[in-house]
């Protein structure tokens, strides 16, 4: 639970930045090298590197070395984590709406 909370905090922090969200969106589609990512933004290599570290800490991306290049891809468990919270949120609404459903049928 504590681990989850800290993890969630990291995720919030990671997603707070538009560049980081954009990086996530890109690596969700396909694996990209750090160099390819740097080319897409008007910020320095160091800045992108920093963003990648934040994303890595939140376990949202994975980096692997391929020759001289570092390849970045989305961590599959990241989405599972996000989906889990969305699923709990959805269940809360389902629970609320089920009550409404019963109420509507009674009132007929």
């Amino acid at each position, binding site marked *: 639970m504590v681990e989850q909370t800290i993890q969630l905090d990291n995720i919030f922090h990671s997603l707070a930045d538009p560049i980081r969200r954009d990086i996530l969106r890109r690596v969700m589609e396909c694996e990209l090298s750090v160099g390819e990512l740097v080319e897409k933004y008007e910020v320095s290599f160091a800045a992108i590197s920093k963003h990648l570290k934040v994303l890595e800490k939140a376990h949202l991306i994975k980096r692997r070395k391929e020759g001289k290049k570092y390849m970045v891809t989305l961590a599959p468990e990241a989405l599972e984590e996000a989906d889990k919270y969305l699923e709990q949120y959805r269940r809360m609404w389902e629970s609320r709406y089920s*009550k409404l459903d019963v109420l509507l049928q009674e009132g007929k």
Partner: protein
Amino acid sequence: MDKTKVTKDLENKTLIIERTFNAPKAKLWNAYADKDTFAKWWGPEGWETTVKEFDFHPGGRNLYAMKCVDENQGEWFGQESCGLMEYDTITEPDSFVYRDFFADAEGNKMPGMPEVTITIEFVEADGTTNVISRITAETAEEIEKLVGMGMIEGFTSSTDRLDRLVAEQ
């Protein structure tokens, strides 16, 4: 039965919640616009709602408290959480817009909690009604925060619990 659909649209800082009911839209409208009906369903399973203020008009507000009465919900049991709605535009019978706040028992808005604008739309087709809730926040981060804290909106104790958990590290 899982009939509720939740879609996250971070680009537009919006969460969309959809659910179709087997009832005409006038009845769904009433479920939101009538104080007593609202109180009967707004609290999720195991949570009872008490409406303290209710004025379903533009500029009017709805202050409610939800209390967990289900012993099986562990640490939530006995906890109370308050929410405040400020109604903005009301377009009967199609839609209405309100601002949603976490509040204390007196109806004071809680600082540092996500503040969102919610549009509820009722679309009727063949005797069924689709209720579409669009929850829009100032930032995408707030949407994430809402989902994460989520589980139950209005769980004012969440931040306290978070503080405690972090302090325990």
